[in-house]
């Protein structure tokens, strides 16, 4: 099993994701440069947080132009796993791999802290080690994490169980308190909070591990 962490110019949580997988989860992981076109060898792609291409114009807007994103689309179409965290979530919506969009936080300020998240659907590749209704504490750090989508889209997300995680305390204004969603096929997750920041005991919080444990268990065929 091998994870790949994409590195765009000005990604900056690439390192955090890399060490979370390598040192904390003990799995194989490599960085993938944004100009890479071949990513077949990876079982799961992590699109990390940061400010790809400076996040100018709109967060994640320019990243969809990069070569690796075509490869990520193909990877996702094959049903393999993709997780976009923070900027990665923004990139996935900009690239059309997930519905909706992420706009400026309701209070117009960047927010950094820890958010209690409720697990809405635990029957997925990303949440199978969690209980429905369970609350996990996951760090957040974003200026544009306010999830918006048309009402029909939101309804569909709800009906299909595509909303995986919701904020207990909605500080950015997201519709339906959405913190993380999956695509219809269930193999692409986008979430604003940072599970990779909650894996190492020295940081005082390991709730994020359960997300990665779920993915690893899914990839091992164990569920």
């Amino acid at each position, binding site marked *: 099993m091998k994870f790949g962490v994409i590195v765009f110019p000005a990604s900056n949580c690439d390192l955090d994701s890399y060490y979370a997988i390598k040192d904390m989860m003990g799995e194989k992981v490599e960085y993938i440069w944004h100009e890479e076109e071949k990513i077949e060898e990876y079982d799961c792609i992590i699109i990390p947080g940061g400010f790809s291409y400076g996040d100018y114009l709109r967060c994640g807007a320019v990243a969809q132009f990069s070569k690796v994103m075509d490869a990520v689309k193909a990877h996702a179409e094959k049903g393999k796993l993709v997780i976009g965290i923070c900027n990665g979530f923004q990139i996935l919506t900009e690239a059309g791999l997930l519905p909706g969009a992420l706009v400026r936080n309701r209070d117009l300020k960047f927010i950094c802290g820890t958010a209690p998240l409720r697990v809405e659907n635990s029957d997925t590749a990303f949440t199978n080690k969690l209980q429905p209704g369970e609350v996990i504490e996951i760090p957040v750090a974003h200026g544009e994490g306010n999830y918006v989508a*048309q009402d029909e889209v939101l309804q569909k997300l709800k009906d299909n169980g595509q909303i995986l995680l919701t904020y207990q305390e909605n500080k950015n*204004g997201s519709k339906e308190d959405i913190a993380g969603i999956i695509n219809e096929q269930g193999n692409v997750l986008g979430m604003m909070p940072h599970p990779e920041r909650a894996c190492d005991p020295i940081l005082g919080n390991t709730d994020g591990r359960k997300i990665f444990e779920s993915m690893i268990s899914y990839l091992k065929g164990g569920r």
Partner: protein
Amino acid sequence: MKIKVYVTLKDSISDPQGTAIQGALTKKGYEGVKSVRIGKLIELELSDRPEAEAKQAVEEMCEKLLANTVIEKYTYEIV
């Protein structure tokens, strides 16, 4: 040639920044500020080309990058 692109939020999408500015203006004592919405003005300088070609290029740039059509709409003019 110069092109001005205007990107604005679709009406159905709320605009917290606009709302905040409206609030600030009202607080400052400006009366009758009924709504404020913030969009982007993107000024492009393109190498000269026939108008039809320019239009096509600009529309493509808007669709692909300059606007996110999930939440935004755009118009443009050649100046």
